């Protein structure tokens, strides 16, 4: 990612500026750089998707949707906790989009994605103060318990389609219903666009003062409290951000998949999100989506060419990453500075 100075050709007009003007110029340049990076990434992916075969755009769509859930996990990992139950918010987002579509006839893809994220956040809200008190395996198992309760509800409640789940029709975009030939690409653009926006927001958050305090919390909670920071508040906020990302990811995946089932909340699904987060590391936002793509590719090709052994391939790959890139693949380009 380019720096503000580099983005302005290395010549920010700082000489002679007052400190306030200087601040404003640097902030403006930083924001401009970020937006340019985002637009560039989206433009590139849009072009790639236009020419790519359908199976590839589908893989990238799934990677972006699933990657959003793992992005939420990375938010929590930066504070020192790893949830084993993000399948819960993934499923809530998916069921919200599917039910709104099927029961209320609301079909706008962006609206459904937002609704999925908001409802997942609202459901996570009452649990946030409780979870913010736990660390390590206790935090992980509590989130796992919540996701398994969601799985149980999905299996038993008729309104959620029981163990078979139910199908979801074709989404619209701002009232436009894409034709058959274009629907995959349109949903690809929506998913990649939403993922790009959330990735940029995540970068801003990670680089912010709150983002830095979250990193410090992972290192030394006691000192954060003795400096006047609230560790519990930081944990709660990260949990809610993770819920928002997971819910949006769930909704987007359901719209492209056209189907929702309780498996969305099963512990193995949550495990895959953790796998991606560990693969990515906690330094780079882009790495989350790269790792998510790696998982989808390994899963797809292993399933096609080595049936029933893709978990083996995945396990070996994770072992390799933990051994040689303990800070995740993001450390390949972020380095060891944070």
């Amino acid at each position: 990612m380019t720096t503000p100075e580099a983005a302005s050709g290395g010549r920010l007009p700082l000489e002679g500026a007052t400190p306030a003007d200087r601040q404003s110029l640097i902030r403006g340049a930083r924001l401009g750089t970020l937006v340019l990076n985002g637009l560039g990434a989206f433009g590139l992916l849009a072009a790639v998707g236009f020419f790519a075969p359908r199976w590839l755009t589908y893989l990238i769509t799934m990677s972006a949707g699933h990657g959003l859930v793992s992005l939420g996990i990375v938010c929590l990992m930066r504070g020192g906790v790893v949830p084993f139950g993000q399948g819960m918010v993934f499923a809530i987002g998916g069921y919200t989009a599917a039910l709104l579509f099927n029961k209320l006839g609301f079909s706008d893809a962006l609206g459904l994605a937002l609704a999925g994220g908001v409802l997942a956040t609202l459901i996570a809200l009452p649990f946030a103060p409780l979870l913010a008190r736990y660390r390590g395996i206790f935090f992980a198992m509590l989130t796992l318990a919540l996701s398994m309760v969601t799985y149980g509800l999905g299996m038993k409640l008729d309104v959620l389609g029981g163990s078979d789940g139910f199908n979801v029709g074709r989404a619209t975009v701002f009232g436009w219903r894409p034709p058959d030939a274009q629907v995959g690409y349109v949903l690809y653009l929506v998913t990649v666009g939403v993922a790009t926006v959330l990735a940029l927001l995540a970068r801003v958050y990670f680089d912010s003062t709150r983002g830095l305090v979250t990193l410090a919390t992972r290192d030394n909670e006691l000192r954060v409290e003795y400096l006047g920071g609230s560790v519990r508040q930081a944990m709660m906020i990260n949990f809610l951000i993770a819920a928002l990302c997971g819910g949006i990811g769930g909704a987007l995946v359901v719209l492209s998949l056209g189907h929702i089932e309780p498996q969305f909340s099963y512990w193995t699904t949550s495990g895959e999100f953790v796998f991606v987060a560990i693969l990515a590391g906690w330094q780079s936002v882009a790495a989350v989506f790269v790792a998510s793509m790696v998982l989808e590719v390994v899963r797809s090709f292993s399933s096609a060419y080595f049936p029933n052994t893709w978990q083996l391939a995945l396990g070996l790959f994770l072992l390799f990453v933990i051994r040689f890139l303990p800070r995740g693949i993001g450390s390949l380009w972020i380095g060891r500075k944070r």
Partner: protein
Amino acid sequence: MSDAALLEAQGVGKRFGAVVAAADINIGVRAGERVSLIGSNGAGKTTFVNMITGYLKPDAGHIRFDGRDITALHPRTIVGLGVARSFQIPQLFGELSVLDNMLVASACQGTHMSYTKAARDAAAVARTEALLQRFALTEHRERRVSELPGGVRKLLDIAMALTVRPKLLLLDEPTSGVSAEEKFPMMDTIMAALGSQRDTTVLFVEHDMDIVERYAERVIAFYSGRIIADDVPAQALATDDVRRYVTGELLQE
């Protein structure tokens, strides 16, 4: 120096099972004072510091700071009132750089916490740079804290405490683990960084009596959770109780 007591402990007591860590402690510290807390290991010095900062709650008595009862307050609230501390074993963020440690300290003050404002914002960096310079830490600015030598970590620990611009600064053994030749330069650095304005009242726990004599204006000596001396250094260190229970001079005789 003001006559009004900035910190007041009234009848403070604390037990850990059968061990008396504090018994009827009554202390008043005026704004601007430089006070040293001395005593042998287990005498109750750190327990007293922990009670002031809210880490431990007293079993009896009250602690007032700046006219407000802080006995039952959360450590974070007490920090907000203007009490900061450093630790005997420096409590730092080992994975972050020196500058980032300082920026965390700065960000933890409510007004600087933001979801969008960059942590390495030029204004925030400039604020912390000044403090880094006062503590002679500028050359270590981008080094990871886990790679720093002990003395530098101690200084950083104290510099971070000062970031919150405290009215009361508690230093828990600021020179422990530092070599004999580094102790005085280190204390000189700390005192110089505090400045001559006396805006910050300092209580420091110390075992080295040379340090106490040179840098303290008042000495409070603890033994078995009780105060056995409270005077200017020359007087306090000359009392029989201090010579017997703290410095051990009478035992040697």
